[in-house]
């Protein structure tokens, strides 16, 4: 016991370990510094965001009072919800097909997925702008059933996210033993009930992580949104971006802080669900960024 303690003590005093530890703390400070700034300056009573005047809650009152800001937030949430649904459905189905029904088609499809992932956002943005104008229909102002601005955002945001979900689900299924599904089929379960009772529960963490990632990618998207969105469906990042070019007011920091709190709450909730489902803290955290943690991670 004391030998272990001594070794741990020596490891702690080791200069390389100390340097690595200091580096780790420094990177954390670097990562959080600007976020802390936003939170602090969200209590700025001044007229301009970047010039501190005095502490107060007025930015929060103004932000919640401002109908344009409220609309932008609601548009963002609705766009993210729709994009997440499309991406999760399309990506999950494609992931299953890739993992369980591979064939000659796989190469072409994966090439397409790869191209989607490497194409810069600005290229997607201009090509979709041209395309939406050209095809019209549900994407044009003539459409009376749906809000066409929202439809544009749903589709635009779901493309990249679908590629991400596809890869996450495929990776998860590839890591699962197919014999479980075969056993179920051998026991005379129909393909539908095998899917419902075996495949779906096993891949659920990947689907959930993919859906969350799709949601957050949509909330974050600025470049594509600023090209395809319309005046009546303009999401939050587009509002912030236009404010950058005009006047930056503390309301933006206030609303951003509220969104951040909401995000943290959602993240915590999902991490809890994933941990309840048997994942270690490390695995849960890794899933939230779309990567599979090591199967036998020491954190278990």
């Amino acid at each position, binding site marked *: 016991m004391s030998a272990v303690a001594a070794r741990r003590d020596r490891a702690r005093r080791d200069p390389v370990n100390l340097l690595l530890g200091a580096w780790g703390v420094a990177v954390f400070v670097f990562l959080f510094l600007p976020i802390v700034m936003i939170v602090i300056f969200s209590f700025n009573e001044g007229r301009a965001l970047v010039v501190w005047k005095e502490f107060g809650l007025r930015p929060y009152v103004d932000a919640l009072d401002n109908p344009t800001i409220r609309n932008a937030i609601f548009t963002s949430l609705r766009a993210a919800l729709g994009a997440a649904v499309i991406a999760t459905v399309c990506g999950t189905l494609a992931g299953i097909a890739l993992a369980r029904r591979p064939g000659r088609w796989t190469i072409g499809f994966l090439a397409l997925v790869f191209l989607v992932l490497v194409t810069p956002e600005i290229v997607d943005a201009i090509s979709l702008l041209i395309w939406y104008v050209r095809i019209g229909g549900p994407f044009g102002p003539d459409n009376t059933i749906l809000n066409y601005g929202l439809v544009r955002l749903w589709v635009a945001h779901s493309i990249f996210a*679908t590629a991400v979900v596809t890869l996450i689900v495929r990776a998860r299924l590839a890591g699962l033993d197919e014999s479980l599904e075969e056993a179920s089929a051998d026991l005379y379960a129909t393909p539908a009930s095998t899917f419902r009772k075996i495949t779906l529960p096993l891949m659920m963490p990947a689907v959930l992580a993919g859906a969350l990632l799709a949601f957050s990618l949509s909330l974050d998207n600025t470049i594509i949104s600023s090209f395809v969105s319309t005046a009546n469906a303009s999401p939050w990042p587009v509002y912030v971006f236009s404010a950058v070019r005009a006047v930056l007011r503390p309301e933006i920091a206030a609303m951003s802080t509220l969104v951040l709190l909401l995000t943290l709450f959602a993240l915590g909730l999902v991490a809890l669900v994933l941990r309840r489902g048997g994942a270690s803290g490390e695995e849960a955290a890794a899933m939230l960024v779309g990567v599979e943690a090591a199967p036998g991670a020491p954190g278990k």
Partner: protein
Amino acid sequence: MAGIENAEIEAAETQAAGAGVGAGAERPRRRAPRFLLAIPAWFLFVFFFAVPVLFIFYYSFGYKPDIFRTIATDHLSFDRYGDSFSDTFRDVFSGTLQVSLTGTLLCLLIGFPFAYWLAVKVPARWRGLLLGLTIVPFWTNFLVRTLGWLILLQPNGPLSGVLQDLHLIGSPLDILDTREAVQLGVVYNYLPLMIFPLFVALDRLDPALREASKDLGANRWRTFRQVTLPLASPGVIAGLLLVFIPLTGDYITALVLGGAKGNMVGALVASQFNTAQNWALGSAMAVILILMILGTVAIFAAIGLVGRALIQRRRRVEIAVEPA
């Protein structure tokens, strides 16, 4: 009750035993194509990605006929590519490549020790929480994070004040609207994308491999160079791609922190569509941006492959010599 259950199980087992034959006979009847489930995603990718991007390629050969129209394609030429390489635009292309290559390298240099510390040095019970903390910036809107830097870097902002109090700088911080501010902003914004794949790769490494290397007499540096680094290389490659590709196309960070100095290729493309209304020139620039990204990735992939082949050849000689 139990008797019935047993009978059911027995029946199921006999049926299961014959299922191998049954499945073989059954399979040809179900003729669903193997890619059936991928059709929705395929449709989305083809109809809303491949076809629109092909239009960009097509438009890049067109021209702007007059100030009222955005594009004409009745005669096609490479002229827009020539226009894209005029002096002013060429500076922006080389500047963008410089910012993105430097940024990617800095992300690797900052991210690797951090990911190593998180995956190897941090006690296991803290690891989940700390990894969770690294996710928070990734989940915060990137435009808002950039605004955080805009506040921080103001000439009379918080950082400037602290640095002046410490007498590290004599006059107010004057970094906004410079290339350095842009560089800082992109490194910050894309660092998480480098950390995650590196962490996963390092986390997967069996500690026993490092211990074995130590037991065989390798020192720390040699263990890192010959065991850790080669095994972590898939994570390094994934991180480099994940950072380089979106960083090269990004222009928002540069616009916020660099002002007029932060002109990236993305901003050129955007201005051709938003203000100049010259779709042909904008499309040509977009195509060049794609080629620039793919070309850089291809060059580094080639260098990497050749380098690996050389190292492997050298190592093989070492192993062949040592037993003698």
